[in-house]
């Protein structure tokens, strides 16, 4: 793994270095108290202050993870925009295409939202679990829970909706693998999709909730509901 990572770094160190430099440039003045309004959009889009202002040690770690997720989202665009030899006009249009491709996955997702309403306890359990975990992860990744550090939630929403429409991708595979390990059996793709659908929804709703300081508890409550529904579902199946 180290060898693969070092090989990857050899090929991709330039965009990574650029992004790191941007983070440092935004973070350093901020921790010394200089946070001009003009930088606010940049703080938001780069996640530069996630875990830097508030959140303690856990916030710091999760903030770093959030920045990594944001970097992955922008990596291709950074490469095209700053390191491509194409004319500037083409670079911009390529960036636009990449962004459009990323955003286009959201549209089919909204069409599936109706399908989340179900009478099946197993489906509802998966949905509650997906929503709950998203609330908790969203709060964790923003570092301090502040709305202005929550761009990572938007990124994850876009990524998950995209993967949902393709039924493949990193988060899709990881979730599948995790469910397989936890449940010791192959997860049903439909249940997995329901789980990820509400998971994506959770990322959108979490930063908008009014009682964000209680978000862990709300997330946990959803997990408990999921567990209860799972038990009910098992009982129903036995009958």
């Amino acid at each position: 793994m180290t060898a693969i990572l070092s090989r990857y770094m050899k090929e991709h160190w330039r965009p990574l270095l650029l992004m790191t430099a941007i983070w440092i440039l935004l973070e350093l003045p901020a921790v010394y108290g200089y946070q001009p309004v003009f930088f606010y959009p940049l703080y938001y889009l780069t996640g530069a202050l996630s875990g830097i202002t508030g959140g303690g040690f856990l916030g710091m770690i999760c903030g770093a993870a959030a920045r990594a997720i944001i970097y992955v989202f922008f990596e291709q665009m950074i490469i095209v925009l700053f390191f491509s030899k194409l004319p500037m006009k083409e670079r911009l249009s390529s960036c636009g295409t990449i962004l459009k491709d990323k955003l286009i996955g959201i549209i089919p997702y909204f069409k599936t939202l109706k399908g989340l309403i179900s009478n099946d306890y197993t489906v509802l359990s998966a949905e509650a679990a997906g929503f709950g975990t998203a609330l908790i992860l969203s709060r964790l990744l923003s570092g301090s829970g502040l709305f202005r550090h929550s761009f990572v939630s938007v990124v994850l929403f876009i990524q998950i909706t995209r993967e949902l429409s393709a039924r493949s991708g990193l988060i899709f595979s990881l979730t599948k693998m995790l469910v397989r390990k936890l449940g010791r059996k192959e997860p049903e793709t439909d249940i997995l999709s329901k789980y990820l659908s509400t998971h994506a929804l959770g990322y959108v709703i979490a930063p908008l909730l009014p009682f964000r300081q209680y978000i862990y508890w709300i997330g946990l409550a959803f997990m408990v509901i999921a567990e209860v529904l799972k038990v009910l579902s098992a009982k129903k199946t036995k009958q």
Partner: protein
Amino acid sequence: MDSMHMIRKRFVFLLFLTMFYTCVIPVCAGGMEVNGPEYFSILSGKYPKEVTFTDTMTSDSNGKCASVMTELSGPGVGSPDDHVFTAHPGERFSFKLASPAKLTTPFFTTHFEEGGRMKAVHADGKGIYELQVISQYLEVTDFGFDADLSDTSANVTLTFTGIGTKIADTGLEKKPDDEIINKNVEKNERAVITVTAKARASLVLLNDLSEYTCSSCQYEEKNADPLADSTAFDFVLEDTVWTISVGEDTQNVSSAVIQEYENYNGPSGLYYHTPAVVLVGSDLYPRDSLPTDGFDYTEPMQQNDEQLEKNNSRLNRLLNPRNQEAEKKKPSSGTGKTKVTLTKGSLVRKGPGNILSVLGIAVLAALTAAGAALISSASSGAASAASGSTKETKASGTLTVNDGDSIPDILAGCGRPVSVPVTLEGADEAMVTWLVTVLPDPDKELNKRLENLMAECAGGNAEARLNILCGPVSEDFHATLRVSALSVKDKAVLATKLTNVKVRTPGIHTKKDNDKTKVFLISEGAVPGSAKETELKEHEYEVIHDESGTAAYQLKSAGKETLS
């Protein structure tokens, strides 16, 4: 005409971009949230007409809200048990804040040990190097403020009482090394450290109010967001006089050596984080009616030097040294009353205070980003392929997998991917994204096994690595992978290559060969994640027949491996 059209087009584009950046994103980013409005108002020269102090926000061992204010006196205070008082310019108050052991969460009980501000007090040959604090008291007398907040001074007595778990009487003038201290250490003596000082309250901007407030206590202001920034006061201690007492022995300390205290003001000042004084509303003097010299803090460059110096010195007295570099935002106008809440929290600025920490965090984020990007590089390609967003083949290049050699067999369930190089040659475009698809099969059973097979390409240019990993499966199987190089620009397929892989399950396998059963062991080969087949000799395995006559093979040195 064309050029005019282009200029107009560009102008509209720039206008939209600017609007997006300055309006849409800040709203999304919470940029419209007012962060500590009083802080910036006071910085800009708008001062409170009155300040209401409320004492809440800590919890006792039962989780109920409890008070840290034990005594209060001053104009308009009815009883010493009051916890709320309203101060006007010129009025002076005295109060005492205590954090006895019954309170579970007041910040300053652990201040001595964990606050990092003060680790040891040593003087005249004797020192307290560890104190298990039982209670702390902060007595503030003669505290108030003038109309323009130019005098926020107070007399402060700070007392730490506890059990000295590391006290040493070395007779040495300066604090000795830890080794000498440990040799002379006396333990479990009652110890008291008292600091008497002149103090001045200074403004500080808090980032996350919830960290200073008791989680079980509702924040009083209904519309206030506990996660939003807010304003508070610190007490900066100056001209400190220290007293340490161990047992019955009381000692005035003339030259205390205080280690690791946070000091922003040069070596003379001890910066003590008092319970926060949080401004949660504002009723500020309009700038025009300020009882000052009319200095406009928002436009300091227009003032003459003398006036600037005069007012800056006042600002310096007012400002927390930590915040002198603070934001120079425009002031917001306030309408409500200024309310000040005494909380249990410290006023420690969140976030690392030095460059190294920031660099460290940035490097950590960068490494995490590299890892995440590496893992996701292929997945994104797979997602786009599955969603059918690729275009027709341009076929402008040649794709080589594993330098033309076949891919080694994959060992199922070993947890390590087989990694082989893939190269694109002769393509017109340098910006390439990779895509690997496991081709489905009409056979349902095989498709089930294919779901365990994951393949991804890591790399964004003409050279990448194809990583293949398979989870545990019950049988060996073959699969076909389609590796494609796509143009970043328009997603057109530049080159495609179909390649076969064989997945092997680890353990003992048998093969019939001319009525003779050959026994093989499948284990991990030299290439990480690959399968190696070794033929076993008769003395290396044994055959066990069960009642139904089925033969099971097992290695002689190991447990049962497989059934045939």
